[in-house]
């Protein structure tokens, strides 16, 4: 019965090509990860991921990614608000710039931020005068992650804000609510799912980020060594089991974040489509 409903031709060939390419490019490589993991001993995996140096790298990655994503959540709402609600010269340029972290190769961002925030750099120099080191510390890692995460919250909040009916705000204003109160009680609850989605996507990206961070991090074990860098060094020593064990923890974290984001996104899509 279902087959008869397919009036448009090309299902077989398009599905075939889709699955073949997906299989070769994504599924087989991922399967090799599963196969390799299956050959490993659970005790060995636990031993690897509870090494003090690895645990310290989890801590560095989590803390810096969390702080960077929180800053981006706040700045993302501000930026989205400014871009949707206000008109001012140069707005289009500002809007176009938001995507720069996606367009600029991470290695370029990495070396550029490093020289900018090093003690001899334009910004790093100012802070060095106050006795604050930025490059080669956790602050430096956080700055690189803020750079990487800028577009996420802006681009999830922007469309919701554009579709938000100003009627409710006007109603709140006429009923005597202050602007701050209107924002907190009327607008913010509507934006919350979008903010969370953007935050989650940025957080996930930050946890796995490598290129922009390695240059500015300094890569001191226990202090500024991020988890992807540990995987990288295990691979360079041909220790594939350790690399895989640590990668599994990262994958688990990434999927957990993705799962939570998807839960919230369902709500967000509902608002975008105007339903509740």
């Amino acid at each position, binding site marked *: 019965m279902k087959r008869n*409903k*397919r009036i*448009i*031709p*090309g*299902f077989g060939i*398009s*599905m075939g*090509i*889709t699955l073949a*390419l997906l299989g070769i*490019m*994504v*599924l087989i*490589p*991922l399967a*090799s*990860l599963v196969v*390799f993991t299956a050959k490993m001993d659970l005790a060995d995996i636990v031993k690897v991921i509870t090494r003090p140096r690895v645990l310290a790298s989890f801590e560095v990655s989590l803390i810096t990614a969390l702080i960077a994503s929180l800053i981006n959540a706040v700045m993302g709402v*501000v*930026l989205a608000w400014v*871009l949707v609600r*206000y008109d001012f010269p140069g707005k289009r340029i500002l*809007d*176009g*710039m938001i995507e*720069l972290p996606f*367009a*600029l*190769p*991470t*290695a*370029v961002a990495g*070396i*550029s931020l490093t*020289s*900018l925030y090093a003690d001899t750099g*334009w*910004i790093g120099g100012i802070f060095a005068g106050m006795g604050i080191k930025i490059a080669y510390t956790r602050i430096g890692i956080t700055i690189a992650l*803020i*750079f990487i995460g*800028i577009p996420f919250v802006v681009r999830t909040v922007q469309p919701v804000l554009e579709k938000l009916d100003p009627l409710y705000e006007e109603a709140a*204003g*006429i009923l005597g609510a202050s*602007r701050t109160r209107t924002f907190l009680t009327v607008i913010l609850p509507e934006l919350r799912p979008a903010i969370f989605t953007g935050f989650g996507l940025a957080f996930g990206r930050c946890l*796995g980020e*490598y*290129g922009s961070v390695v*240059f500015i991090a300094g890569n001191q074990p226990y202090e500024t060594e991020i988890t*992807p860098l540990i*995987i*990288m060094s295990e*691979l360079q020593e*041909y220790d*594939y089991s350790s690399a*895989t064990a640590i*990668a599994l923890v*990262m*994958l688990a974290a990434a999927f957990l974040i*993705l799962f939570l984001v998807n839960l919230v996104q369902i709500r967000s899509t509902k608002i975008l489509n105007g339903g509740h």
Partner: protein
Amino acid sequence: MSGNAKKAVRNKPEKIVSREGNTEIHAQTAGSKAVKIVLITISVLFLFVMLVMPLITVIYEAFRKGVIPYFEAISDPDTLSALLLTLEATAFAVVINTVFGVFAAWAISKFRFRGKKLLVTLIDLPVTVSPIIAGLIFVLTFGRQSALYPLLEELDFMVVYAVPGIILATVFVTFPFISREILPVLEAQGTDEEEAAALMGAKGFAIFRTITLPHIKWALLYGIVLCAARAMGEFGAVSVLSGHLRGKTVTLPLQVEILFGDNKFMPAFAVSSILVVLAIVILIVRSIVEYIGKRRGEK
């Protein structure tokens, strides 16, 4: 505006409620103007420090020693071979992912089938994993401990620490880029037009070329631009699979890393400046495509 409103209120003193409302709104606009200026200032400052200054740094450092050293740095043989390899990997990524993107978006948007959600999730998977893990899975698939390794050795076809590995990694990290741009357009368009054409006897490719392609051409172009951008700039996954053999398996971003690691800062920034120019071109193309898309949407 508010002057006129006040005058209007004065002429009709019986409308006390509306007058109160007016002063209320008037006070709000004065307050919100200050808020507006503060918020715009914060946004501009934030983006200037976080996005513009890194760009200025690249250009400044690249030309620090003048124009001639700059051109010497970017015409270095290692840099040129890195540029070639980058273009090669990018070409593979664009071609494979365009084919995949068009067929996958067509299959997902025009037909109903079971497991569609799963398929979409699997397609998006490559961008959700860390680039280092992307590199790792190809090392596990084709590296020394893999079951495929003896076969590859016999064929003398090396993947890890060789060009095929770099190409695979590049295709992998950009895998969903084109399908992701086309899919929403096709889903919004629905299937009515294609169904009508099919009922009138049009063949698959004719339907695609005359009906579907005009709808998706801007999304497709934007997807290709995004894919090319990310392919040229990919660092982590390529870094895992490259082995950093100078002149052989080094792409432009890896060349930047090598130069920076050797404390050759000026050349590192000179090579980076090529990628910065590409990034800016991409942003401009993106704005144009979005602008055209919006204008067509308004009509």
